């Protein structure tokens, strides 16, 4: 079924059984997997996706089809996840601008104690992906989402901007902060493991 066609949109707004059935069958599991990649459990992911469908069908009459319905659907879902995180106070540490500035001196050069290390030690580690997933959990929601959509799901920049409702410049800032935070935290973990022995 062509989800971009005006005919499909018309059928969806009329709650045609085949149109609704096709959409839900095609996207329900993808939505759950997308939610799981953001680090929430299966039960919560299902609740979020149920809420996503409810919101879609509440708002579909106003949906004009300027973006693909997939983008619209995933945009709703990621907003639901952000609401969930805000209510659970999900993230514990915010890598703020002040911390970013502490990495660099007045001329923008790395400070001696913050210089990035050679990552060859990371390549030897079999636990790197687990460490990466754990540190992803500590990122602020927008940064985590931007990183997962860009680097885990490999979505095109334009699509991510529509889903997160940000400009490409803002997305660049989110990705920059996310990657910087991740590499600093991962470095600390490996330094700590080296100290602990």
């Amino acid at each position, binding site marked *: 079924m062509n989800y971009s066609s005006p005919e499909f949109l018309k059928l969806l707004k009329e709650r045609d059984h085949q149109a609704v059935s096709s959409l*839900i069958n095609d996207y329900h599991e993808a939505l759950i997997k997308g939610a799981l990649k953001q680090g929430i459990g299966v039960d919560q992911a299902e609740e979020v996706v*149920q809420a996503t469908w409810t919101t879609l069908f509440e708002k579909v009459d106003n949906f004009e089809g300027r973006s693909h319905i997939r983008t619209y659907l995933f945009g709703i879902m990621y907003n639901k996840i952000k609401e969930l995180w805000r209510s659970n106070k999900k993230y514990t540490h915010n890598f703020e601008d002040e911390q970013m500035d502490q990495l660099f001196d007045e001329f923008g050069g790395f400070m001696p104690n913050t210089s990035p290390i050679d990552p060859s030690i990371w390549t030897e580690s079999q636990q790197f*992906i687990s460490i990466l997933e754990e540190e992803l959990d500590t990122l602020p929601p927008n940064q985590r989402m931007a990183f997962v959509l860009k680097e885990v799901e490999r979505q095109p920049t334009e699509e991510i901007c529509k889903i997160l409702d940000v400009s490409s410049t803002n997305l*660049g800032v989110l990705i920059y902060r996310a*990657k910087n935070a991740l590499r600093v935290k991962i470095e600390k973990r490996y330094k700590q493991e080296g100290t602990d022995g």
Partner: protein
Amino acid sequence: MDKLIKAIRHFLHEEVSILAPKWLKRRMISCQQVTEILSSERHVSSFKKVQLHMHMMICQCCTNYKAQLKFINQKAKNIQPPKFSAEQQVKIDNSKEDLINKFSNNK
């Protein structure tokens, strides 16, 4: 050879940090700017690309930064959501049916 290159980069970067006057340092592309460009993968002018390339030739910190990013990006592709158990799959399939019945008008 690799160690020698790293040592030369370190030496050159230190010399530039010490010897270059402040007005020149302010005009040169900084590590902070380099990290921003590398992370965000935004488009930059040809002039900026040349500056970036020259900075990378003498800065071991930014070279390490780039290698770290490359490694994180490569490993991130391997992050997978947990697989559904048989029970979870049944629950999901039932949810789909319930949703279809809830939101469609006719059969």
